């Protein structure tokens, strides 16, 4: 039986009509959606512009640490968030990339990939993260030819095959569990020790087709038309080893999508947007929330909470600067 993941909200022409927005949210993941929810409830003229609704929730199969939802599929949680937002009738543009943000006096100009420009008093940047790369030879060459960053998207292509998972955090452990129904053999290769939650590691113990190589650093991905395997350094023995495999899922965290702000606000050495306790960046009127910020823990509930904090701070900011309260 087929299911359907509708993302298309009611077409909103508001984006052609509103001349000056109170707040534009860039990014429709947990941080952006919750930010918009809080802002709308405060009566702000708020709109969301995003490539996709749900963000990284779609790369996640099961979420078991969002309060109130036991063991929910990432995409179902995303649907729940989206349904909630829809009841508030927040205008949303999906499938649209924000290309550039410019400051013009006290107004921000948000330039979109469809050629439109939105003018807004404040911005909530909630663009989250993109998969971090290993940066080893062969990674680009074999991307989509064995190398992948999304188990929920690509696991079915590895039916009865041997796949490697790179990484040692929660997303790597979850990737292993996503691959269990498909792969004939799974090998984790990680440069140090496990950082995943105990509860996930317990689940991995039950997977008998799983091999684990810790303290092992991937050096190279090789193959011809398709990837054929990896070369890695076994750091405990200090020997280079070869591991043949049909696929490699890279699950080593995210890099922040902060490129839009790189000339406007301060970033830290990891390119994360530096925010204060009110989620405000170094530029007045620009706020950020979720995985794109310098907040350490990249989690759904934390991102959502940051979105809420940002929206409330933006409300106060607007009252102060535009209404003189």
């Amino acid at each position: 039986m087929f299911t359907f993941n509708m993302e298309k909200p009611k077409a909103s022409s508001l984006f052609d009509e509103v001349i000056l927005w109170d707040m534009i949210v860039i990014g429709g993941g947990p941080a952006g959606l919750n930010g918009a929810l809080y802002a709308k409830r405060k009566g702000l003229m708020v709109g969301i512009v995003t490539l996709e609704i749900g963000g990284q929730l779609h790369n996640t199969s099961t979420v078991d640490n969002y309060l109130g939802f036991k063991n929910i599929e990432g995409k179902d949680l995303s649907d729940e968030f989206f349904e909630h937002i829809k009841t508030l009738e927040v205008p949303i543009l999906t499938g649209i990339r924000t290309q550039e943000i410019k400051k013009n006096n006290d107004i921000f100009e948000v330039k979109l990939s469809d050629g439109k420009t939105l003018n807004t008093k404040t911005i909530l940047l909630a663009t989250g993260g993109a998969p971090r790369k290993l940066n080893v030879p062969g990674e680009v060459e074999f991307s989509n030819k064995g190398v992948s960053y999304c188990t929920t998207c690509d696991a079915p292509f590895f039916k009865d095959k041997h796949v490697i998972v790179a990484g040692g955090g929660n997303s790597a452990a979850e990737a292993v569990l996503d691959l269990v129904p498909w792969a004939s053999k799974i090998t984790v290769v990680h440069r140090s020790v496990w950082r995943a939650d105990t509860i996930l590691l317990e689940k991995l113990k039950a997977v008998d087709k799983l091999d684990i190589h810790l303290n092992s650093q991937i050096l190279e991905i090789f193959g011809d038309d398709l990837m054929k395997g990896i070369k890695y350094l076994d750091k405990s023995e200090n020997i280079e080893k070869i591991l043949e495999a049909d696929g490699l899922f890279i699950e080593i965290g995210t890099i922040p999508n902060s490129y839009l702000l790189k000339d406007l606000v301060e970033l830290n050495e990891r390119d994360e947007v530096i925010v204060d306790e009110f989620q405000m960046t170094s530029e007045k009127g620009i706020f950020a929330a979720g995985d794109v910020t310098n907040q350490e823990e990249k989690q759904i509930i934390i991102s959502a909470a940051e979105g809420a904090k940002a929206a409330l701070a933006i409300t106060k900011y607007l009252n102060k600067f535009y209404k003189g309260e």
Partner: protein
Amino acid sequence: MSKLLNKELQDQIREFLNMMKDKVTFVYFKSDKNCDTCEQTKMLLEEIADLSEKISFIEKDLNKDTEEAKKYGITLAPSFVILDNEGKYKGVKFNGIPAGHEINSFLSAVIDMSGVEFGFDKDLVERIKKIKKPVNIKVFVTLSCPHCPGAVSNAHRLAMLNDNIESEMIEAQTFQELSVKYKVSGVPKIIINEKHELVGNQPIEEYLNKLERL
């Protein structure tokens, strides 16, 4: 048999389809041989067509209606094309059922084909119209891939803006032989004129850069 779309989805889609400007036609090709998803694809198309007066549905048989199949370059089943108001084929094709996330690229194509402006920049449209060489774009997807509908929509929009360009979605699991042939192990995977590749959901500019250099 119960419907594929529940009441709530029907309402959502009906409301979305209210945006349509002119009429469109779905021409669907079935096959009686080895087609596990034909029946459900037909159901989906009929259910969607029922939600708007502006959509008509025509069913054809890949093995019997060879003339039509040839006209639209159909070699697989289930496949369908979306024709514009004048019944013209603009190179917009789907191979496999557009369920899951792909419902989004399907509905976008319906709205776009009905004549609603894409809101593209003038310069961008100019560049697209300038492509003179014949182009075929294949976008391989899976139904659980959230990044895929964007890639499909971009390719379909290029096709709608230029008669030299044809674009087709291919559901990788339905057509496993093709996935093997084109070495698909990750989606979206975009193949241009059989040999050039783009990986991931690319902005329309990236497509254009590639097409301009063909």
